Each structure stands twice: as C-alpha cells, then as structure tokens.
C-alpha cells in the first residue's frame, strides 16, 4: 500500500499506479467469477469481461494471471478454492505485464512462485506498481518447456504482439492454446492499446503451426482455430481499408469521417463481429495512424521471423 492511500477509515487495497487520493472502492469491489472446465486438468475463469485459466497439478494449482483489481484477484482465488478445495496455489504465470491482467499477485498469491518472460519482468520491475509482484523465475527466447507439479506445458514468445513479453501457453497433450490480449472474439479492443501492429499478424500466425483446437483468449469466450484465423484476417483487412481511407483524404482525427467510412467499407464484411459498432472506428483510426507515423518504438518496428514453431 502506498503512503498516500493510508486512510485509516478505508479498507486498504493495493492501488496499482493510481495517483489520486483513496479510498479507491473499485479496487476492492468483489466480482462473481464463473469457472468452467476446458479439457482434462485445465479450467477457465471469467468475470464476464476478463478471462484466464488455471491448471490442477498433482499437489497444487498453477494460476495464469491475477485479474484486474485486488477484489477480482481475491474472487479468482476463491473460485480456484471452490473447484479445487484441497489444493493450494503454488505458481502464477504472467501472460504479459499489464496491470489489468497481472497487476495483483500480492492479493492472489503473495507467496507463490511467479513465472514470466524476461521482457515482461523488466517492465514489471521498472514500473514498481503497488500490488504487482516481480517474477521469481524468468525465461528468455521464444520457447521454454515446463513440467511443473505433473503439468506439462510450453511458454511461447512469438515476437512483439501486445504489451511486453507477451507469451502463449501451449498444452500439447490437451491441444489447448492460451494467450491474452491478442486474438479476442469480435473486433479489436478500442484503439488497440499497446498493440505492436507491424509484427502482430506475422507473430500470431506462427502459433497456427502448433497442434491445438481450443483457444482460450484473455477476454470473453473460448474459441477455436477458425475464430483465431478470422481474427487475424480482420487485422489484414483493417490495414488495407486504413490505406484506402487515407488515400481518400480522411483524417484519422476526424471522428465523424472515420466512423462514416468504417460503416461504409467495413460493415458489409465485419459488421457481424462482436462490438463492431463500439470499436471498429477506433480500430481503423489506430491503423491509419500506424501508416502515418510508422510503428511505435522498438517493439512496434520489429520484423518477425515467420518460421513456424
């Protein structure tokens, strides 16, 4: 807990990087968590918007991510206890470094081991966010196999996609792939926050070389290879339409013009997608900016080796 939030009248909560005075009631708010089996010993949990997985080991539980607030982290811990009441959480795996997925290990399992890609951990340590714990073990490179508490899985870094050190978890025996904030059912989230659009599609396509038939995303519902491929096709189309819009003189900052162009050019093919009306224009504006400015930073200008895994 940071000093500025030490309010004796309020319940203490880890406050991420918020700087306004507490109490921050939303940080502690409880959310119901649903839990469903995926396959064998893999379970998926969601509070309706965010989604992750946990895995039953021989002796304990491996949790991926922490959910987005201290309150939801505690609800996640409660859900795991309901499903596996005799097993304790011993390991947390960070998908990437963003607080809304991995910000609250201090509330989920403060004594657990934490696995992360080294690029993720660098940012976590530099950020120093209240409630986000640094990794206790990292790996580098693009592929690392684990056999942990009887659970076999691989952690895969396909290249820059979203955030830093964003990894997929591949369970070859169960043919399940889990990856957060990349492929999501429907259109992209708002303006593709912290997406690295130059390497994104080539990096994600590498994961199609693996043998899986269930894909668990970091939001909303579970999908399959077809849903995964359709999502990548949407990104490719967005790149084409963004150039078309610019060639017609549309300014990405002119919200009415971008919205009208989105409805005219993208609705016929993609209007059926979840949240199209909410976000497609923001998606298009972001892609237009990508062509005008170039990719953003080192991660946003990397060229991915498309070699299959």
């Amino acid at each position, binding site marked *: 807990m940071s000093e500025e939030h030490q309010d004796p009248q309020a319940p203490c909560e880890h406050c*991420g*990087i*918020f*700087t*306004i005075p507490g109490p*921050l*009631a*939303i940080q502690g708010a409880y959310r119901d968590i649903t839990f469903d089996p995926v396959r064998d010993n893999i379970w998926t949990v969601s509070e309706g918007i965010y989604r992750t997985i946990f895995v039953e080991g021989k002796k304990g539980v491996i949790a991926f991510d922490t959910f*987005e607030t201290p309150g939801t982290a505690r609800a996640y811990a409660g859900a795991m206890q309901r499903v596996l009441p005799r097993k304790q959480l011993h390991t947390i795996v960070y998908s990437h*470094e*963003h*607080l*809304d997925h991995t*910000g609250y290990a201090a509330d989920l399992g403060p004594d657990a081991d934490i696995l992360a890609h080294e*690029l993720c951990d*660098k*940012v976590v340590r*530099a*950020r*120093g*966010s209240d409630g*986000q714990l640094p990794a206790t073990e990292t790996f580098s490179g693009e592929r690392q196999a684990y056999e942990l508490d009887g659970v076999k899985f691989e952690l895969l870094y396909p290249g*820059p996609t979203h*955030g*830093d050190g964003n990894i997929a978890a591949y369970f070859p025996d169960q043919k399940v792939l889990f990856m957060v904030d990349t492929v999501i059912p429907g259109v992209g*989230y*708002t*303006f593709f*926050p*912290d997406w690295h659009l*130059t390497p994104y599609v080539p990096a994600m396509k590498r994961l199609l070389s693996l043998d899986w038939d269930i894909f668990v995303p970091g939001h909303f519902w579970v999908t399959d290879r077809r849903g995964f491929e359709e999502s990548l096709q949407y990104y490719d189309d967005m*790149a*084409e339409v963004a*150039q*078309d819009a*610019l*060639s017609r*003189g549309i300014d*990405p*900052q002119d*919200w009415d013009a971008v919205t009208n162009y989105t409805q005219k050019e993208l609705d016929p093919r993609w209007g059926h997608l979840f949240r199209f009306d*909410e976000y497609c224009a*923001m998606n298009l*504006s*972001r892609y237009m*900016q*990508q*062509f*005008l*400015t*170039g*990719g*953003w*930073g*080192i*991660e946003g*200008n*990397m*060229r991915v080796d498309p070699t299959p895994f």
Partner: protein
Amino acid sequence: MAEHKGLFTSDKMQAWLADEPAMETTQLSDRVYTVTDGKVRSIFLAGDTGVIAFDTFGTPGRARAYRAAIEKALPGKPIGTIIYSHDHLDHAGYAADLAPDAEIIADEMCAKVIGLREADGQLVPTRTLSGTQHDMQLDGVRFQLLNPGPTHGTGNLSAFFPDDKILYSSDTILTNARYGLLPDYHIANFVKFMRELLELDWETFVPGRFDLGDRAAFSKGCDYIEAIQVASQEAFVEMVPIWVLGAMQGYVGEKLRSQFGDLDGYDAHIGLTSIRIVHHYLMGGWGLEDTPSPGYLLANEA
C-alpha cells in the same frame, strides 16, 4: 516515377503521397523560420552558408513543398543538415525527397527505431546524439537540442534558441486540445518532462502541429494533460464505463469544461484523449518508456 511510400503497401496511395500542398512560412528571428502545411509545423534555420532543416514533413510531396518554401525564403542556400525531431514518418519520413545528401542528426534511440523500420524514403541518421542536452554550433547558428526523456515517439528532441527565446518541440504540447488518441505518447512522465522545458528562458513556442504559442499556452497545455490524468482516474474509480467513448466524453468533458473548454477542438477530442489516458492507469503504461524510471527495450531483446 513512383513516390517513396513509407510503410504503405497499397498503390492507391501514390496520388496522396505526391500531393504538394501550399506552405505558409513565417520568419521568427534573424535565423529562425517556421513553416506549416496547415496541420504539421516545423522550423528551419538560416546558416552562414546553408540551411538547417528540422524534419521533412510527412509525404514526398510535402517534403518537396517544404524544400520549395525554404528556397523561397532563403534562395540559393542548400539544405546542408536535417535534424529529426523524432522517428515518426509524418514528421521525419522523407529526407530522401527533401535533401538526400544532407547530414542527418538525430537522437540515438530515434536512429535505432528508424534503422529497424526500414521505411521507404526515411533515411537513417548520419550523426547520432546520446544524452539529454547538446550545445550545437552549426553553420554559425547556436542552439541546444534537448531530450528530457520519453515524451512522444522515440528519441524526441526539442530545440531551444536562447538568443531568440524560442522553443521548438514536436508532437508534445499543443496550443489547442487536438490530441486525439495521443498516438505514441508516454504518459508516465510526460507532463513532468515537459514542465522542465518551462525552466528555460523562452517566449515563443513552436509546436509540431497547428498554431504557435507562448509560455502561457504551453503551461496551459501541461495543465490540460495533467487535469485529464486526474479526471480519468476519477472516472475509473466512479465506475464510469471507461471503454465507452460517449461516457468518457461526458464525464471528463463536463468536469474540465470550465477550465479548458475554450481550447480549440475540445469537444471533438476530449473523449478520445480521456479514453487513451484512462487506459494508462488500467494497464500500467506501455513499455519501459512509460515507467517511473524510463528506459528502452533494445532490438536484440524485443
């Protein structure tokens, strides 16, 4: 002949890339000029023997129009040096069309990104600078190049002209509210780093877009971004649906209207800018650039 095309892959872009808009040039001092196409703005300097141009504008056609504007203001003087304010193509993407043989100066991290990007028409710097402050003496012109830390893009350099009391800073503070989604801004230290530039003795502010300003306008720009940072957090805590444009526009827009509603573009941009900033607090900042102790992931790491 086909135009240099940056990162564009579509042939439909050729006419847009070739368009040469009218440029408006204003002389700010004996040696400092500013030029704009109506949106993007830059500066160029009259050296003893040649011209020092900041940036290139954002298409081959605009780069040629920029060159023509320089030639009109300073006839017979060649562009001997280009200084990149930062790495983005819409400002520094087309040196191949502005002055392909000029020396190009940039911050070392800006140069690394440009080297990785390999955009068609964006030339790699020939001289790089590391550190936060550089006292320049180029072709008889004295000025400072300043990199206070990650603000927007990569390796963003401001230029300070102490003799003329002019500050140039591209795509950082604006003199209006037209920030949109704050593309590639690094929120964590942005206002802190920009306020450091207020410690210098200057009177005229040249932004990378739109109209010129003064210290009061610059200071108000810092206040504006800071106020959105606070109001966006309050929106989050009060359970405003932060992913809904209309909801953020309504909440933050009304909260800040009395103080900042007079800024040009306020109503059109406050919702988008708020959505971008609230996600900083939700997600935690983007990359090492956006942390309290900023740094960069290097290419061989990412």
